């Protein structure tokens, strides 16, 4: 059984890039699901739990930050780690994201090795 991952981004291409890069990373993956915004993601997480969420920040309907805030307020989702994937380079903004309950930040463009490193750091190495 690999890690179940949810990828949240309003761009289908970006979701595809993250999924492809995760596939190349060597991480033991289970189901890789996708959502187009925070609202869709919360609905999916309720029906099909994930071990890890990768999300964009700026999305229509519900942003990544609002999604994280709602996850942290929901006891069933509060412990699910969230990784923001963005082009954001401002230290101030990244610190703000971490303060809001995001566990890690990945800056684009990213490599399979970097995604693997982040997953292993958050989920504790190869899946048993």
């Amino acid at each position, binding site marked *: 059984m690999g890690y179940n991952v949810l990828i949240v981004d309003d*761009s289908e291409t970006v979701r595809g890039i993250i999924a492809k890069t995760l596939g190349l990373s060597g991480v033991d993956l289970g189901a890789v699901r996708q959502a187009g915004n925070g609202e869709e993601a919360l609905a999916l997480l309720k029906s099909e739990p994930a071990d890890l969420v990768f999300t964009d920040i700026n999305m229509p309907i519900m942003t990544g930050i609002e999604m994280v805030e709602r996850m942290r307020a929901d006891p069933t989702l509060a412990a699910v780690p969230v990784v923001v994937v963005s082009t*954001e380079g401002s230290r101030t903004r990244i610190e703000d994201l971490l303060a809001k309950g995001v566990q890690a930040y990945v800056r684009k463009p990213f490599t399979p090795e970097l995604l693997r490193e982040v997953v292993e750091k958050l989920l504790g190495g190869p899946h048993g």
Partner: protein
Amino acid sequence: MDESTESAVRQVFGEVLERFAFMFVEPPDEAVAAPAEPMLAARMGFDGPLRGTVALAVPAPLARELAANVLGVEPDDGEAMPGDALKELLNVVVGNLLTALAGEAPVFDLTIPELVRFDASHWDALAGKQGSLVLLVDEQPVLLSVAMQPA
């Protein structure tokens, strides 16, 4: 665009394209005319210590190649969305360019990249202008136009 800004633009565009899409950028040996093929172009704005817009125009076949490369599919695969891939490339270039120019301390607000109509007349109007760079990507011409000023 002064010399150091132009150098940063070239370096960031080259590095991002190589890491993002496994494509390589070269300066042209001589003046490059507007591509004969239809073009795709995307534009986005930024606001912070520096304020402005960046536009990127590429021939349609190159946009298809870009989309295929980033997704690891064939160029004619229905999964590859050239416009979406071009917008994402621009988004990544602008994010990295702002860090290269202003460092990691400032906060910038970025607009969502949008596709814009672009043809040979737009290319000709922009290509010789201050702030525009014509480069070759996999031997196909691309136009990168940066307009910025201190806020």
